[in-house]
C-alpha cells in the first residue's frame, strides 16, 4: 500500500481519533485575519440594515414633500398662465383704445385743412409718441406681471424687440402707414411663451453619509491567545556553556515570536568547521547499525541517517547534521521540556515529554556534526550510553 493511501485515511479517521489529534495538534492559523474579515462583514450588514430602516422612515416624509412641491408648481403654473393671458387681454384692450384715440378725427370746422400728406405726417409723429408710450406701458405691465411669478419663466418683451419694428415703421411711414400699424400691432402682442419645463427638479436632501472610520489594523493580540491556550510548556531557556575552546558550542532554545508557534532549537558554534574529519560512522560498542544512508546529498542541508539497534532489539533513530544547518522545533502547546547537561564533558540537550510511551530527542556535538537521536524516554539511559561511547573527540 502506498504512503499516500495510508495517510489519506488519516483525514477520514473516526471521530474519537480526530478529537485526539485536534487536541494534541491544535490547528494554527491566522485567527486575526479571519476575525477582521468577519467583523467587516458584520459592520457592512449592520449598516445596510440601518440604512433600510432610515430609508423607510424618510420615504413617507419625502413623498409628502414631493406632493407639496408638485402642488405648488401646479399652482404657480396656473397663476402664471392666467397672468399672461390677462396681460395679453389688457394689452389688446389698450391697443384697441389707442387705436380709437389715434384714429384721424374729421374736423368739420371751416378752418380745417384736408391735407392728407400733412395729416399722415402728423399721424406718424403722434403715432410714434403714442406707440412709444404704450410700449413703455406695456413693458412695465409685463414686467410687473412677470415679477409676480416665481415659476414658470418670465415673459418680458424686451425693448429691442419693440424698437426695431418702430424703426421699420418709421421708414415706411410715408408709403405704408397701414403696414406700419400692422407691424406695431404685431409687436404689441406678447411673444409666445417659451415651452415650460415639465420636470420638477426636486432637490433631494443630502443626507450626511456617515462613513465608519477605517478599521485600524491592530497588531495581533497575542496576549489573548495565551489566555485561551493553556501554557503547559515551560521550556528551559538557553544553555550557555562558556566556549572555553573553539571546538565547543552550545544549544540555544529560542522562544517563538507569537504564542502558539514553535520553539526553535539551534546550535551556536563560532567555528562551523568540523574539529576533525572522520568518516561517517556510528559504531558504538553494544549497538548495531542496521541502516545507514545519506539524506539529501545534493543539498547543503544533507545529513546522515542511522538506525541503531541495541542488545534488546530496541531501535534508535539518529541523524547527523552539519552545524550550520541544524535546527529543531517543537510545539509550544504540547507538554515538551528541555534539559541541558553534559555527557563526557560535551554539551547535550534533551527534549522530552513526560508520561508513559512518550518520546524524547537527545542532541549533542560529536565534533563533526550535531547529532539528534530519537527514541522513547524510558530508554534514555541507553541513549546516553550510546552518546558517551560514540563521542570521538
Amino acid at each position, binding site marked *: 500500500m502506498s504512503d499516500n493511501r495510508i495517510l489519506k485515511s488519516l483525514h477520514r479517521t473516526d471521530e474519537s481519533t480526530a478529537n485526539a*489529534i485536534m487536541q494534541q495538534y491544535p490547528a494554527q492559523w491566522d485567527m486575526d485575519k479571519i476575525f477582521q474579515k468577519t467583523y467587516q462583514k458584520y459592520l457592512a450588514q449592520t449598516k445596510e440594515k440601518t440604512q433600510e430602516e432610515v430609508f423607510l422612515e424618510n420615504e413617507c416624509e419625502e413623498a409628502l414633500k414631493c406632493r407639496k412641491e408638485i402642488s405648488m408648481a401646479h399652482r404657480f403654473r396656473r397663476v402664471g398662465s392666467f397672468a399672461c393671458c390677462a396681460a395679453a387681454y389688457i394689452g389688446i384692450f389698450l391697443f384697441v383704445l389707442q387705436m380709437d384715440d389715434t384714429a384721424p378725427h374729421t374736423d368739420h370746422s371751416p378752418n380745417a385743412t384736408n391735407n392728407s400728406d400733412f395729416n399722415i405726417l402728423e399721424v406718424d409723429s403722434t403715432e410714434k409718441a403714442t406707440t412709444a408710450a404704450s410700449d413703455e406701458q406695456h413693458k412695465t405691465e409685463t414686467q410687473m406681471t412677470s415679477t409676480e411669478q416665481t415659476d414658470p419663466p418670465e415673459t418680458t418683451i424686451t425693448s429691442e424687440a419693440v424698437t426695431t419694428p418702430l424703426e421699420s415703421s418709421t421708414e415706411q411711414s410715408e408709403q405704408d402707414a397701414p403696414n406700419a400699424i400692422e407691424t406695431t400691432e404685431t409687436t404689441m402682442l406678447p411673444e409666445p411663451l417659451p415651452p415650460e419645463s415639465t420636470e420638477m427638479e426636486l432637490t433631494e436632501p443630502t443626507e450626511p453619509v456617515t462613513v465608519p472610520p477605517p478599521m485600524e489594523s491592530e497588531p495581533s493580540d497575542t496576549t489573548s491567545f495565551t489566555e485561551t491556550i493553556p501554557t503547559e510548556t515551560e521550556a528551559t531557556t538557553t544553555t550557555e556553556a562558556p566556549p572555553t575552546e573553539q571546538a565547543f558550542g552550545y544549544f540555544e532554545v529560542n522562544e517563538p515570536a507569537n504564542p502558539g508557534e514553535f520553539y526553535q532549537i539551534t546550535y551556536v558554534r563560532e567555528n562551523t568547521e568540523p574539529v576533525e574529519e572522520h568518516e561517517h560512522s556510528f559504531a558504538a560498542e553494544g549497538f548495531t547499525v542496521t541502516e545507514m544512508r545519506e539524506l539529501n546529498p545534493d543539498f547543503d542541508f544533507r545529513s546522515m541517517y542511522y538506525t541503531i539497534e541495541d542488545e534488546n532489539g530496541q531501535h534508535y533513530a539518529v541523524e547527523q547534521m552539519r552545524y550550520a544547518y541544524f535546527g529543531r522545533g517543537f*510545539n509550544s502547546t504540547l507538554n515538551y521540556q528541555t534539559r541541558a547537561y553534559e555527557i563526557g564533558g560535551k554539551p547535550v540537550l534533551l527534549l522530552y515529554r513526560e508520561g508513559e510511551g512518550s518520546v524524547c530527542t537527545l542532541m549533542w556535538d560529536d565534533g563533526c556534526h550535531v547529532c539528534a537521536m530519537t527514541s522513547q524516554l524510558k530508554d534514555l539511559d541507553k541513549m546516553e550510553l550510546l552518546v558517551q561511547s560514540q563521542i570521538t573527540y
Partner: protein
Amino acid sequence: MTDRELRELVSASQEDGFKTLFQQYQSYVYTIIWNKLRMVGTAEDAEECISDVFLQVFLHFDEIKEGSLQAYIGTVAKHKAIDYFRKLNNLSETSDDQEELLNIPSDENIEHDVEASLANKLLYEKIGQLGEPDSSILILKYFYHRKSKDIAKQLQLTPIAVRVRLNRALKKLRRLLTNEETIWGRGDTP
C-alpha cells in the same frame, strides 16, 4: 470570561468584545466544523464556515439569552457545518433524519469499521513516535490539508525542508508500521 463579562465588554467596546468572544470560542467552533468538513472540504472551506458562524453570532448577539451563549454557538456551528457539508457534497436538501441514516453504518461493514478505527489509532500513535517536527508536519499535511508553504511558515522552516522532512518521515513511518503487524503490513511489501 463569563457571558456577563463578555456582554459588558461588548457594551463598552463592540470590537474588543467580539474579538474576545471570537478568541474564546474559535477552537470550539473549529472542532465542530472540522469534524464535519474534513472529509469533503479544505482548510479554506473551514475558515469560511467559521467566519459565517461568528457573523451570525455577532448579528444576533443581543438576542442570545444570558448563560446560553456556548449552546447557541455550538448549535449555529453544527448547522453551518451541515450546510457546507451539503454544499460541498452537492447534496439536495435532505432532512436531518435522512442525513443521520447516511451516517449509520450497515451491519456488513462493522468489522471493517472497527479494524479501520484500530488502524487509525495505531497510525496516530506511530506518527507521535516520529518526534517533532516530523509528526507536526504529517498532521498538518494529511489531517489539516495545509500546503507546504503554510507548514513552512508555521514551523519556521523552508518549503523545501518541509518536503524533504515529509518524505523522510513517511519512510520512517512505513518502517515503524511494517515492524508492527498491522493491516498495512500483512501481505504488503514495504
